[in-house]
């Protein structure tokens, strides 16, 4: 008993620390235009590959751009687009999954078979395949990632609805004359929130990693945008003389993804939600 309370407190403490770190990162990304010392894409070849100074706290890159400003603006891109991908796939999954679980029958069968088809692929491979078809570029990458991700949410919501619809309070609501949509909105959605919070935390971390990986491969966000993955891609040519060019952005990705992962785990412990290993494996 005491042990379980202790782990509970510990996971709360971890969650709080992670939340603070993420809040700072979010704040930095929102405030980037005001706190960044320089324009992140302003090229000044006279100042290329400078070491850190008061004017350029982290030095400059091979085109004389301010490293610190690029990192700050990079957090904007990563967090922003990861959130966009997360929210859109969540909403699509929510609507389709809930509907399919609630209706059952043919609709449900089609969704299940379709999602199994999607899950037969490692998700990054499918995203790459879609990008290959649509052509490289940021909108295509976002579209491809949403097209793959929503399926996992839809399955999760469907499963929850199926287990919830058997519950007595749903039956009571139905008997008392609530409409289908009222039942879904008032009784089902509040019950499914904790798993979503857990899944979402892990999902945003993964999305940041995938966006960076695609940009690194040259398929996502194109230069001169200060995206972390493409910064590593540009920095790798200077690995002998200026390794910090690729060290900084990678460090940022590591910190942010790790924080999301630890937070996700702490939250899942807190809410008593099982992590989905299936999805983990698909990456």
């Amino acid at each position, binding site marked *: 008993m005491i042990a379980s309370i202790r782990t509970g407190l510990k996971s709360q403490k971890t969650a709080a620390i992670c939340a603070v770190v993420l809040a700072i990162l979010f704040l930095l990304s929102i405030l980037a235009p005001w706190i960044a010392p320089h324009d992140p894409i302003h090229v000044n070849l006279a100042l290329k590959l400078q070491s850190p100074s008061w004017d350029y706290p982290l030095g400059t890159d091979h085109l004389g751009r301010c490293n610190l400003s690029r990192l700050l603006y990079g957090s904007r891109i990563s967090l922003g687009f990861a959130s966009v991908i997360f929210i859109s796939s969540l909403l699509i999954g929510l609507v389709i999954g809930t509907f399919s679980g609630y209706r059952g029958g043919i609709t449900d069968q089609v969704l299940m078979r379709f999602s199994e088809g999607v899950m037969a692929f490692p998700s990054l491979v499918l995203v790459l395949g879609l990008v290959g078809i649509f052509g490289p570029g940021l909108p295509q990458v976002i579209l491809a990632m949403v097209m793959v991700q929503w399926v996992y949410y839809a399955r999760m919501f469907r499963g929850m609805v199926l287990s919830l619809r058997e519950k007595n309070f749903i039956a009571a609501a139905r008997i008392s004359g609530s409409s289908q949509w009222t039942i879904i909105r008032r009784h089902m959605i509040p019950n499914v929130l904790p798993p979503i919070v857990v899944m979402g935390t892990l999902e945003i971390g993964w999305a940041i990693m995938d966006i960076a990986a695609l940009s690194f491969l040259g*398929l996502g966000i194109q230069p001169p945008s200060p995206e972390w993955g493409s910064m*590593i891609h540009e920095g790798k040519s200077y690995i002998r003389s200026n390794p910090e060019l690729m060290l900084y952005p990678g460090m940022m990705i590591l910190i942010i993804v790790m924080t999301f992962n630890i937070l996700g785990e702490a939250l899942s412990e807190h809410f008593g939600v099982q992590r989905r290993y299936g999805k983990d494996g698909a990456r």
Partner: protein
Amino acid sequence: MGGFIGKRLLAVIPIFFFATLLAFLLIQLSPVDPAEAYLTAAHIHPTEELLEQKRHEFGLDQPLFVQYAQTIMKMCRLDFGTSYISNEPVWQEIALRMPATLQLAFSSIALAVIVSIPIGFLAAVYKNSVFDHLSRVLAYVGASIPQFWLGYLLIYFFSVKLDLLPVQGRGSWAHLVLPSLTLALGLIAIYSRLLRASVLEQLQEPYVLYARTRGIKEKIILVKHVLKIAISPMLTGLGMNLGKLLAGTIITEEVFSWPGFGRYFIEAIFNRDIPVIQAYVLISACLFIVCNLIIDLLQMYLDPRISWKGRSSH
């Protein structure tokens, strides 16, 4: 037991069907006209007449369902069409690059297993010790580190600073070390945690208590009984992480200029070489499905209880 195998095999068929259908429809979304791409690749000026002729030759004037059936039939004969870029049969190009990718994948799985068994086992036995905490940190870092960055970090330390290992390419054993390590770290993170959890779970079992009361040495209980059983879930982990591994080979091959299948795929994406993209997606889905099937069967062979637990119901 035979019934279980039969059911498991039958369950693969619809998944296979939908996966291939998906890959096929994906190609249909492509704005590239295969006939035109083919003619351009062959340096023939595409006139309307030639295009019609090629479309007929490729079966593009057939209904979609017929085209799908033909694609599957061809796939079974390993005919994935010809590359738009090199004009060579896609399968030939893939067969040329496959050994490099398989070598990389197997060596990193081997490395991951060799490293994660002692880590996971000791972390469980010495639960909450310094070692356990260190292994937890390793797991978090391994799960969160971007593979492409890890690759360059390793290059920086081992090739640039220490000048011990070659930076890029394939050839000697030394070339294999850094790419395998890059690919293995993420797997080590997962496997060591899986093994730790499964050893801890086994330690709660009554047979451990009986063995202890019978006065069997702790070392023998741990290694001969607990570890032997606890390793089984790692197999499932292996199956579930094949996708991660596959995606990982793409990135690792790109970082280390490893002449494999994944790098060829990225090249194809840049060149809009649709037959190659389709082949990669199809082959990776098939590999994924088949490997998971093999692992399921292998696990059932190792632990016959699984088949009686009604796992065949899904």
